[in-house]
């Protein structure tokens, strides 16, 4: 049976990884069909020439950076406030925000913004997307930072306070530096989660704030194209690097 399990594992990992590897492989194919002709970087050049893709990427980067900074600050403070306290309500709300179907979060935020715009004469735009992303990134940050907090000894802060530090000083000079790798890991995770989101974004984005996932989605709705293969390969590599960095930070 051991040998069969081994064979199965090979097939299992092939199922998980081959689709993405094939996708990346054919992004270097000169033909738009799934038959190898010869090596070409044409589809990557097409990305650079496509203003929609470039603008979408730019919007996505801006949104992801804002959402990451905001959610990392809020989430880190929240994780710190939650530890040593058995308040279940905020934790419950955070977990509920994780299991809420994305489309439901999306329409709920759309309803909120439309409702608020009755009094405020604003419009959907980049900032509504940032707010929506902050809403779902906080939970990820809290989970990652809390895991790091649990590994810290409470004796550290107690020692600082015994030596005369105020609670704020103990947090700022002792706990925060010790938490830094966890915070970095959380921020990188938030960055990828925000950059990747399509469903919620598409509900709350304004006309001038199309993100990269929205551009890809619109293209994919019209069928496969080697240009999407090329973008996909790039995204996969960038995400892979970010997540590897995040894992490394979490382990130090």
């Amino acid at each position, binding site marked *: *049976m*051991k040998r069969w*399990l081994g064979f*199965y*594992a090979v097939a299992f990992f092939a199922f*998980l*990884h081959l*689709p*993405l590897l*094939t*996708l990346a492989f*054919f992004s270097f194919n000169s033909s738009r*069909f*799934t*038959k190898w002709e010869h090596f070409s970087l044409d589809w990557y050049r097409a990305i650079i020439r496509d203003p929609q893709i470039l603008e979408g990427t730019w919007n996505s980067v801006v949104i992801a950076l804002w959402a990451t900074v905001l959610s990392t600050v*809020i*989430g880190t*403070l*929240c994780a710190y*406030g*939650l530890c*040593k*306290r058995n*308040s279940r309500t*905020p934790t419950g*709300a*955070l977990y509920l*925000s994780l*299991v*809420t*179907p994305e*489309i*439901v979060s999306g*329409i*709920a*935020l759309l*309803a*909120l913004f439309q409702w608020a715009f009755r009094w405020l004469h604003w419009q959907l735009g980049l900032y509504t997307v940032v*707010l929506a992303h*902050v*809403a779902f990134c*906080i939970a990820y940050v809290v989970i990652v930072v809390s895991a790091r907090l649990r590994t810290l000894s409470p004796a550290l802060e107690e020692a600082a306070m015994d030596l005369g530090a105020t*609670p704020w000083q103990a*947090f700022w000079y002792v706990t925060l530096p010790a938490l830094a790798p966890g915070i970095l890991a959380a921020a990188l995770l938030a960055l*990828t989660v925000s950059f*990747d989101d*399509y469903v919620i974004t598409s*509900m709350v984005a304004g006309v001038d704030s199309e993100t990269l*996932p929205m551009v890809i*989605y619109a293209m*994919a*709705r019209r*069928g*496969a194209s080697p240009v*999407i293969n090329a973008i996909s390969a790039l995204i*996969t590599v960038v*995400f*892979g690097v970010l*997540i590897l960095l995040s*894992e490394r930070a979490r382990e130090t």
Partner: protein
Amino acid sequence: MKLRTCFLLPAWLAMALLFAVPFVIVLAYSFLTRGVYGGMVPPWTTESYRRLFDALYLAILGRSFAMALAATALCLLLAFPAALFISRAARHRNLYLQLVMLPFWTSFLVRTYAWIFLLRDTGLFNTILLSLGIIHSPLPLLYNDGAVLLGLVYGYLPFMVLPIYATLERLDPALAEAAADLGARPLTTVWHIVVPLSRPGIVAGSVLVFIPCLGAYLTPALLGGGRTVMVGNLVQNQFTTARGWPFGAAVSIALMALVTLVLVVFLRRESEPLA
């Protein structure tokens, strides 16, 4: 105010403003009527909820439920032997786990798109089958229920592997050895000893797969080609093209109620052995 309380304030505010308030608005909309000029107006009514019981919408709810159930069962079937393999591997367990998680960390949109690329008429499978002469015209692999199911399974498989692995890893190997000593064949041991003991992991994994599948929107929209309407697509449709916000809100509330019900029923019952 104590420092820790101050620290909770921003998160509390964000969750209230961006999670609780929108939810209340959706709840309110689900009991309102659509006005002539688009806005939601009284009278308050349960009409939207009654519409849920129309044969058309019941069929969509039923199909979503069936799809999520089928995806969960397939994930379980695929993930259990893989988790067993990893838990019994002598070396490289962490590497295998990372290999399970790796595709999960790449973009969900990209992973869904990969199947459009592979399953389309000129995709890899059809090209191979055609060039081998097994088929003479491309098979319609994309834009059907099967493609959606495949996309859901592929998307959420890691959610099933990890919890099962976590319980298998903590299983005392002496139990399986004892069964073998008493003459049980390996498969018998797995079926009668290992599977029942890994129940908490199986339940946790199933919940983690079932919930996102039930509310899936992206996968059916891209791989179903508009034909397979799941409940997520129904919600999106009501809020965009159909302009049926009260009904869309009612569907959302029903979906949330289902998700919460599944969570409460299964996790409450299983949380003790997990802790």
